[in-house]
């Protein structure tokens, strides 16, 4: 796989939000307006890039048995650094992202990429993968935020849009609208990009708790995947 493919797979083919369906909490919560979405995307991308580089560089040092706690500590360190930077240079963004900024630690995209990609690949490839996945996350988030802000609030990045600002559908910016727009977007991706990667390449297999979870809930989805193959 060359570098370009490695980067671009995160954008559409393996988009972390719309295809792999990871990191749903921040996606739903911070996509109420475009500024928040871009801020969240940038913060998560920085953390993802740094954690992918470091985890890939340390992949021969970290013992296999305690790798998940090690990854969590590394990721938490980067999240703290990003939190402090945002607080210092963009206090307004810090206020509007609120709790979701420290919660990047438990964003499954970051732990998932560490587990699926960074601990098996070279530093450069992992960095490219991190950038691509981060860009895909930001893209999906911005797309969703655009729909929700333009139709829900009648503005585009804060600027009012002539007709829509008088006839906005406020519910789209509230919680139910988040679920609804997310559902529609995934349905659209299913419709227009039907050649999704096989189930075992992503999702449950990439989730750090797959082993335990397998006994509980992933069983049925694994069977579905086997039936589809």
């Amino acid at each position, binding site marked *: 796989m060359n570098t370009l493919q490695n980067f671009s797979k995160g954008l559409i083919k393996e988009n972390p939000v719309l295809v792999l369906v990871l990191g749903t909490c921040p996606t739903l919560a911070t996509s109420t307006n475009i500024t928040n979405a871009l801020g969240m995307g940038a913060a998560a991308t920085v953390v993802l890039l740094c954690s992918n580089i470091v985890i890939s560089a340390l992949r021969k040092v970290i013992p296999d048995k305690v790798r998940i*706690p090690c990854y969590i500590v590394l990721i938490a360190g980067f999240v703290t650094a990003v939190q402090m930077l945002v607080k210092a240079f963009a206090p307004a963004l810090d206020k509007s992202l609120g709790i979701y900024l420290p919660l990047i630690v438990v964003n499954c995209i970051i732990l998932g990429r560490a587990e699926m990609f960074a601990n098996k690949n070279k530093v450069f490839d992992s960095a490219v993968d991190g950038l691509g996945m981060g860009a895909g996350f930001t893209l999906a988030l911005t797309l969703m935020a655009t729909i929700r802000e333009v139709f829900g609030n009648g503005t585009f990045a804060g600027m009012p849009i002539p007709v829509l600002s008088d006839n906005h559908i406020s519910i789209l910016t509230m919680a*139910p609208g*988040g*679920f609804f727009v997310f*559902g529609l977007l*995934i*349905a659209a991706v299913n419709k227009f990009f039907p050649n999704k990667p096989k189930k075992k390449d992503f999702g449950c297999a990439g989730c750090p708790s797959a082993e335990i979870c397998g006994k509980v809930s992933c069983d049925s989805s694994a069977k579905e995947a086997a039936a589809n193959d």
Partner: protein
Amino acid sequence: MTKLIIILLSAVFINNYVLSRFLGICPFLGVSKKLDSATGMSLAVIFVMMLSTAVTYPIQFYLLEPNNLGFLQTIVFILVIAALVQLVEIILKRYIPSLHKSLGVYLPLITTNCAVLGVTILNVQEYPVAGATTFWWGFAQSMVNSLGSGLGFFLAMVMFSGVRSVIEGSDVPKSFKGLPVTLVAAAITSLSFLGFGGVIENLFA
């Protein structure tokens, strides 16, 4: 006392963790297929939420703040939660194997659940020990908030597993099969919680 009841009820209904704050969406979508696994998961979440608040709240106000280490909050909290979950699992396995059998499988899933980290961080932000607030009053408020958040999670999971069992048998368009139709159903479920806004403050006014 009234204050505590208001905190409890608003955590369950108005600021429902799943349906209006968007925390813990992964288990909400992943484990809500069957009623018994939904119940088991939510009971484990209630337990871990209260336990981790009971530990992280004193850590924040007796250890981190007096020593100007507030910036370590994220790292310390996630480590405490992860260690606590492991510890609980080991203790349950050794002493109460029957309980471990029904709840044990869900415990490790909870470590990276954003609802648990979320509730501990929100508690130290919303109920700080400052001004007239004594430590125990802040602590009581936090514990009640954790209980309410856990109960809200339980309510959302149980309701939604019912909704899902209906969806399972219905005929939906091909591109909506699976997750998309589940999300649309979640939107309608969360719509029902919007109606609670403003009710609880006026209940005691």
